[in-house]
């Protein structure tokens, strides 16, 4: 060990490592998508890594996570193995959803990761239900529910904020405001663009956070999650962030100004943290090497993985019952 014992520094280096994992994993995904190894829709999280990594620091293994179709980052940060995510995107039997979900539907119930939901705002009611069940049983869990700014235009968003507040459900609403609902800017589809203000009208404690600063996100999330866990009812974080790449691999990204993208890139959460923490080139290289090895293994795993037999096509439409009946 060349550096001195520094718990804060070590934790922040871990945050950096997590963000780099996501960044490199997704860059590889884009490459594999171009090579037609990954198909379907592929929504990349690059630029938003601080949100997933920071927010999920606030959760324990017992807590629940509900996510969206842009969920590679949440899954990786939650601990879903890169290999099973990659295998899922390869459509393999060992994928985390046995090849039936793909990029938009990563599930890992063992880690209480209740999936990527590809209907905008479709995960909010589920999060309420997960939280309601915990409440009824008296379990002190938090359900973190990620969704984008686009969800604020859906009726379900308002139904759920009202109901969660009304029933004081233990939900941490984590709104990833990246300023665009696909290609439509927030200001184009909302009169009031301050989403934290809107959530507050449901009497939910809400505040905006710099989503490009992983430390700020973690701090806000810890604060909110503790309040939720202590029975304070739902809390709402508006995590202001930006995706550096297009909405999906299909998106020519004509609706954004290049200058705007470049300006946001100057706030790259990974560079920012490395600078602030004075992470050395050597340290970074070491992390990069580890991450690269993990990703290579994930790809090898996915490439070698078996396909689900077609004979099992209709499995999991209904539960498989054991025993008589």
């Amino acid at each position: 060990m060349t550096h001195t014992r520094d718990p804060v520094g070590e934790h922040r280096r871990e945050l950096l490592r997590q963000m780099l994992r996501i960044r490199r994993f997704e860059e590889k995904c884009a490459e594999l998508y171009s090579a037609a190894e990954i198909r379907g829709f592929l929504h990349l999280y690059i630029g938003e890594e601080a949100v997933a990594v920071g927010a999920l620091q606030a959760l324990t293994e017992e807590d629940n996570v509900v996510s969206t179709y842009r969920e590679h980052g949440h899954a990786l940060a939650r601990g879903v193995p890169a290999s099973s995510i990659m295998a899922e995107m390869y459509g393999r039997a060992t994928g985390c959803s046995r090849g039936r979900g793909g990029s938009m539907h990563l599930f890992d119930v063992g880690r209480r990761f209740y999936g990527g939901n590809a209907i905008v705002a479709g995960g909010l009611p589920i999060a309420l239900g997960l939280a309601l069940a915990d409440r009824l049983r008296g379990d002190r869990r938090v359900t973190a529910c990620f969704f984008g700014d686009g969800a604020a235009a859906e009726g379900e968003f308002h139904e759920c904020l009202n109901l969660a507040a009304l029933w004081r459900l233990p939900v941490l609403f984590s709104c990833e405001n990246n300023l665009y609902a696909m290609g439509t800017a927030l200001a184009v589809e909302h009169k009031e663009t301050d989403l934290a203000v809107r959530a507050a009208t449901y009497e939910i404690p809400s505040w905006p956070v710099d989503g490009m600063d992983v430390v700020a996100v973690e701090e806000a999330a810890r604060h909110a999650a503790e309040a939720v866990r202590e029975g304070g009812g739902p809390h709402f974080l508006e995590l202001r962030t930006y995706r550096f790449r297009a909405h999906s691999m299909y998106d020519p990204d004509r609706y954004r100004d290049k200058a705007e993208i470049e300006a946001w890139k100057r706030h790259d959460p990974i560079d920012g943290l490395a600078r602030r923490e004075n992470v050395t080139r050597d340290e970074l290289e070491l992390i990069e090497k580890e991450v690269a090895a993990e990703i290579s293994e994930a790809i090898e795993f996915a490439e070698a993985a078996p396909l689900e037999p077609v004979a099992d096509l209709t499995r999991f439409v209904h539960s498989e019952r054991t025993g008589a009946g």
Partner: protein
Amino acid sequence: MNAVLKTTYREAVRAALREALLRDERVFLMGEDVGRYGGCFAVSLGLLEEFGPERIRDTPLSESAFVGAGIGAAMNGMRPIVEIMTVNFSLLALDQILNNAATLLHMSGGQVPVPLVVRMTTGAGRQLAAQHSHSLEGWYAHIPGLRILAPATLEDARGMLWTALQDPDPVLIFEHGSLYNVAGELPADTGAVGIDRAAVRRAGGDVSLITYGGTLAKALDAAGELSGDGIEAEVIDLRSLRPLDDATVIDSVRRTHRAVVVDEGWRSGSLSAEITTRIVEQAFYDLDAPIERVCTAEVPIPYARHLEEAAIPQVADIVDAVHRVVGAGG
């Protein structure tokens, strides 16, 4: 000897709810006006007082939110019963029912079962016009991953709910609005019933009348009338609309060689079309006449009594259809 209770369909459903709430503490009831109001159709009257607001939960008019919350609670170990006032309102929650409840298990590779029960009323006959009267259970029966039940008798109203709650996957129960006041007798010890098989409600050898839910009574009335004409109709109550019990239907048609399907849904692209097709697929060489369907006219259900009556299947329509099928040409 069993004691016999005089009861109604409404009371039978309520008794089933009570029993479920008593037997399994994971069970709770949630929906619009299920608590203080006692249920839009007074089904849950008195349950709030008995079980308290945590287990009898009045919800805002947010179908998507509370049906989705039912899904989430079911995923997280509970056994929620969600009540939606009518099938027409369920369309506001269709996203949750189709995109989540029916889909999560498969989409997650088997990781996320959704043991949810959703109850709702369906059907016409009460002059409630075009936004409260439709029979859309056939739509839901289209969706893999759901189980669709249509209790048509007191026994099924009493017994299907508990069985549905034991199912690891989502079950939708459609209660025809005209049935709640139907009175009859049930053995005091009536309990859970199977939900896998259709039931032959009346035996007969001349024609198979295949129906479910609100039109069962009409089919039985028609069968009684036909008997006077020397035609013995076998009346099959499907009970489960998904999965369909093909075996009972096909067995009957193989004996009668003729079939009339009675369905309060619209004809085009319907459950009646599905049943007809299955008969043709599986019993073509046993058919001695074209299959007839008695369905609702292809209109939104109108308000005026005479128009509503004209729109939905009636006993006379069923009798006429049977005569066409059983009688000679011309």
